[in-house]
């Protein structure tokens, strides 16, 4: 096995030569080895030395946690004694089990890797670029469109090229603008759990909202029971005065039940038809698009779809968070594929996190700087329309404890193709309303509450978006170079990008 290990080491060293900066290498020899999460290019936060991975904005996650803990705490402290005596002690036991399950699945959803695709190594990116150039021929005025078509089970699916990650996204993957990662089987970015929901944590998310539905209904029912039984003895008002905590619990649960139970129902529908929230919102497999449109990923029957989503094999994380970055470098011949030597642009961008990004973005900038940009296929939009931003604070007070309902800061809206969705979110909340979004499912009303990241199919210049990032992300260099105003759709999207900038 020794040779095998040395092969592995060899490969790791080969990679690190290209991904670690030449300036860093001599420095690293003296300091301790770094783990890979420390140089992770996405906008994620890591805790416990890389074991825990979350999105950048975690404020709402703590709110969720506090709401659940406080409500359950009040329930166990004030109501359970009464119920255990008057009815049966099994009630607190069931409540306890549900509570533990909810917290467990919540933490699992929030802390795990949703299925992030690691970014391409410089060699891969260069190879892909070469293939794209060869396939499309340099027309000279426009960068080639970056999509690939593939036929899956009889349906033609377009694979899009991700400019940030330098890969062609696998089917059903999407780039999350908030976390700045491509995520496999991307469902949506949920601020309530503080993470993206994707292939690896969808089942935990579903279990979380399902068990939370049961828990809220459970608490709601039994607190009402408590109040009723108590008021039979001492009268209604004294019963309320006797346990004011119960009133708070009832209020929280009442509002939570609507959103959470609705959300569970919606996701049950999604699981049984093997769709992601992303696909459902865009109507990718809706029969209304064309007669032959069907979902190529569905297994045909509800049972198999459910089993596959919930009990299927759990793929491991593709980003090796806790692995060490190897800093020793074997001798390598200069690359013959036309990439400039890796150290050349380093001095200008020494504060950037990823060298290969710098190289590629420099190359891209040079390509783009001389050409007006065609970006119909680029797909990294983060759009926030003003009406959403303004109306949301009023709404969050109603939607307590509801996961994945809309939020003020940094929340993207669905793409321009479904403007009705975003408009309705501004005005109607809970009551069922005439939804112009053509979907026959009754639970679709709940979708109006959700802000989802639907990064595909919205034309927008990638550089503009990266320019909009408040962080010193490496692509801000890219954005400063180019001029997106040459086309109407680009202009519209750059305005949106600016709006996002001003609201963040």
């Amino acid at each position, binding site marked *: 096995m020794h*040779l*095998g290990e*040395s*092969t*592995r080491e*060899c*490969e*790791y060293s*080969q*990679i690190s030569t290209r991904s670690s900066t030449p300036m860093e290498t001599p420095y690293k020899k003296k300091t301790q080895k770094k783990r890979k999460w420390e140089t992770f290019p996405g906008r994620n936060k890591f805790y416990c030395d890389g074991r825990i991975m979350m999105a950048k904005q975690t404020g709402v996650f703590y709110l969720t946690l506090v709401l659940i803990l406080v409500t359950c705490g009040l329930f166990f402290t004030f109501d359970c004694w009464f119920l255990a005596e008057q009815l049966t002690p099994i009630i607190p036991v069931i409540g306890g089990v549900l509570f*533990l*399950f909810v917290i*467990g*699945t919540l933490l*699992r959803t929030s802390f795990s890797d949703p299925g992030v*695709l*690691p970014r*391409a*190594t410089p*060699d*891969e990116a260069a*190879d*892909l670029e070469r293939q794209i150039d060869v396939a499309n021929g340099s027309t000279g005025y426009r960068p080639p469109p970056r999509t690939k078509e*593939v*036929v*899956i*089970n009889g349906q033609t*699916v377009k*694979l899009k090229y991700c400019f940030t990650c330098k*890969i*062609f996204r*696998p*089917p*059903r993957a999407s780039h999350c603008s908030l976390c700045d990662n491509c995520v*496999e*089987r991307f469902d949506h970015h949920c601020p309530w759990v503080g993470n993206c929901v994707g292939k690896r944590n969808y*089942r*935990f998310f579903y*279990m979380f909202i399902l068990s939370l539905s049961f828990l809220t209904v459970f608490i709601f029912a039994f607190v009402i029971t408590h109040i009723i039984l108590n008021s039979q003895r001492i009268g209604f008002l004294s019963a309320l005065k006797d346990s004011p905590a119960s009133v708070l619990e009832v209020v929280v649960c009442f509002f939570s039940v609507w959103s959470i139970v609705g959300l569970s129902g919606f996701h049950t529908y999604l699981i049984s038809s093997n769709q992601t929230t992303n696909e459902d919102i865009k109507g990718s497999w809706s029969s209304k698009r064309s007669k032959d449109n069907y979902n*190529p*990923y569905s297994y045909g029957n509800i049972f*198999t779809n459910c*089993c*596959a989503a*919930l*009990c*299927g*094999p*759990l*793929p*491991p994380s*593709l*980003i090796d968070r806790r692995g060490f970055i190897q800093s020793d470098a*074997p*001798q*390598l*011949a200069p*690359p*013959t*594929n036309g990439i400039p030597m890796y150290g050349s642009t380093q001095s200008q961008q020494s504060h950037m996190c990823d060298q290969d990004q710098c190289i590629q973005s420099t190359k891209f900038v040079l390509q783009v700087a001389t050409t007006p940009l065609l970006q119909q296929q680029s797909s990294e939009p983060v759009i926030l329309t003003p009406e959403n931003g303004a109306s949301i604070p009023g709404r969050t007070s109603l939607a307590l404890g509801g996961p994945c309902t809309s939020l003020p800061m940094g929340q993207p809206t669905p793409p321009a193709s479904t403007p009705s969705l975003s408009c309705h979110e501004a005005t109607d909340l809970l009551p069922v309303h005439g939804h112009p979004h053509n979907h026959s499912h009754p639970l679709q009303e709940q979708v109006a509450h959700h802000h989802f990241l639907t990064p595909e199919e919205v034309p927008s210049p990638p550089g503009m978006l990266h320019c909009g990032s408040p962080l010193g992300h490496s692509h801000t260099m890219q954005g400063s170079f180019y001029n997106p105003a040459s086309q109407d759709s680009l202009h519209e999207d750059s305005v949106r990008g600016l709006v996002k900038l001003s609201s963040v």
Partner: protein
Amino acid sequence: PFVPQTHSLQDLRQQAAVAAKVFIQRDYTNGTLCQFQTKFPSELETRIDKQQFEETVRTLNNLYAEAEKLGSQSYIEGCLACLTAYTIFLCMETHYEKVLKKIAKYIQEQNDKVYAPRGLLLTDPIERGLRVIEITIFEDRSLTQ
């Protein structure tokens, strides 16, 4: 007739220079399952025969299919995990991880027996996020010198 010099992995690691890298991309015609294209890349024509290459890729594809297979074993594992609130994975390895270990062994074995003697090196796709099979082509110094 081209007679390739045999190299050991040690030689490759220490002395050989990288001439080129070939990337075998994913094949999505069966959906999101992890499968790689079996198309023989032209850069390898002088180094290895088509049959050998295709057999390697096909075996890898079969192994990945086994990892993601929906069968009774995976369902039992999934249900058990759910019932134990997923704490069972603290002590047990998932089926997928077990197969990945098998794949790593297979690749290493292929490298030892087939690819290194021809001046090639396969990289385990897991190290590339299951996007590509990277094949490093080393310069054949013994022929040029």
